[in-house]
């Protein structure tokens, strides 16, 4: 659902100091400037490879972990039609994870290593999935607004420079359009339903408002910049721009249902920029560093799946076959 393009301080520093072969670098950069894609076997700067692996891997983990809060409600979906849609959506998310792991693998990190790094905490996933789904209305809000936010991000990233990532994202965006539609349908049914249905929807919106603002990462002022990420078309829009685009597309769709966001300062100013109260960036940092309501559970479930399924994978492995980095 989401791959963050935010750089850590050290990464930003190293990106600006790593020295590359100037001739190759120039050919690489002019290829990107012409709008051509980079393919796995092409020469690429060390930092380009590194940042792409980090970002695509994080995106893949987000798909896999993102299926967990939604999976919680499959057994308790309110009717059969909703259950079928939710099962299909969760299956899609896992499929998207697989597509993204494949894209990251072409850069030379094995899928196994990525899954290990998820479990041992070396690599992250989107913060938004560290929050629980208390009621069915949370599923509606995740399906509509969290997927909506992810689509804003993914459509932008699909214009990037790395061929395999773009191809995966195109397929993902095509599939996610159904997620968004069924999420909206779900939200509208609750909003136009009984008093109780409206109340649980309002509660869910109140819970998800801050995590949704956190979703696109820290404000442009707070985040470490790298001109290179933009030049190399790894990052294509700033966090604030993406957040603004999201608010612009989705806030009116909640307001028209006479549902509110828990923020009296949320409004669009005359320049088309959305204003909102400080969404508590300390909480964002706390949760990203492991202290969210569901971090421990998410990792424990992944670890259980990894360990409980290991004997099956090991039984299937043919030791005479050698793994090779996939082609595209």
């Amino acid at each position, binding site marked *: 659902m989401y791959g963050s393009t935010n750089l850590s301080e050290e990464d930003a520093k190293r990106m600006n100091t790593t020295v590359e072969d100037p001739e190759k670098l120039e050919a690489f950069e002019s290829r990107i400037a012409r709008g051509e894609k980079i*393919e796995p076997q092409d020469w690429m700067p060390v930092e380009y490879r590194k940042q792409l692996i980090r970002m695509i891997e994080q995106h893949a983990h987000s798909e896999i972990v993102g299926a*967990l809060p939604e999976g919680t409600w499959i057994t308790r979906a309110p009717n059969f039609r909703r259950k079928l849609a939710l099962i299909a959506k969760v299956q899609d998310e896992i499929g998207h994870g697989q597509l993204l792991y494949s894209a990251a693998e072409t850069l030379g990190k094995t*899928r196994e290593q990525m899954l290990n790094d998820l479990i041992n905490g070396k690599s992250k996933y989107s913060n938004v999935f560290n929050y629980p789904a208390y009621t069915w209305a949370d599923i509606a809000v995740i399906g509509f607004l969290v997927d909506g936010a992810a689509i804003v991000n993914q459509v932008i990233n699909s214009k990037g420079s790395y061929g395999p990532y773009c191809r995966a994202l195109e397929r993902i965006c095509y599939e996610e359009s159904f997620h968004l539609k069924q999420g909206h349908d779900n939200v509208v049914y609750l909003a136009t339903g009984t008093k109780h249905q409206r109340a649980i929807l309002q509660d869910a919106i109140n819970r998800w408002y801050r995590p949704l603002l956190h979703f696109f990462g820290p404000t442009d002022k707070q985040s470490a910049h790298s001109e290179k990420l933009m030049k190399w078309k790894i990052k294509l829009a700033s966090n604030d721009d993406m957040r603004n685009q999201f608010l612009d597309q989705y806030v009116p769709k909640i307001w028209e249902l006479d549902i509110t966001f828990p923020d009296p300062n949320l409004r669009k100013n005359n320049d088309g920029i959305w204003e909102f109260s400080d969404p508590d960036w300390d909480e964002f940092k706390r949760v990203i560093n492991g202290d969210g309501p569901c971090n421990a*559970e998410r990792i424990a479930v992944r670890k*259980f799946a990894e360990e409980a399924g290991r004997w099956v994978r090991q039984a*299937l492995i043919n030791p005479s*076959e050698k*793994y090779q980095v996939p082609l595209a």
Partner: protein
Amino acid sequence: MSSLDPRVNRLDFKKITDGETHTNSHLITWEVFHQDKRGKQVIHVGIVHAPTPDMALILAKEQYARRGKTTNLWVTKTSDVYTFATEDEDIFETTPEKHFRDPAYYKVRDRIEKFQKQQKQTV
């Protein structure tokens, strides 16, 4: 651990060891090709990880035939695919002057008409 998810509550977390991860025990990859209509080309769409061709086909069906129409899927081991090196892209560049390969280059009507005119004059 107490979870909102009843399925998570049923897991026996005591069974899992702590911190142990394995390396180099992964399956090989297979390149997947998809055909969406009888008579159309079979096109490369991505990869799956699988131990055998049968498993690769099953997983490819889940991954690449979930939506839209599919008439067939092909899989082949990644290691069985041979390619040119991408830095040799220029070997595909030949002379830009390729009129002789263009059907519109071959114009004979003028010549035929000229010939016929000459024939009439000689008669």
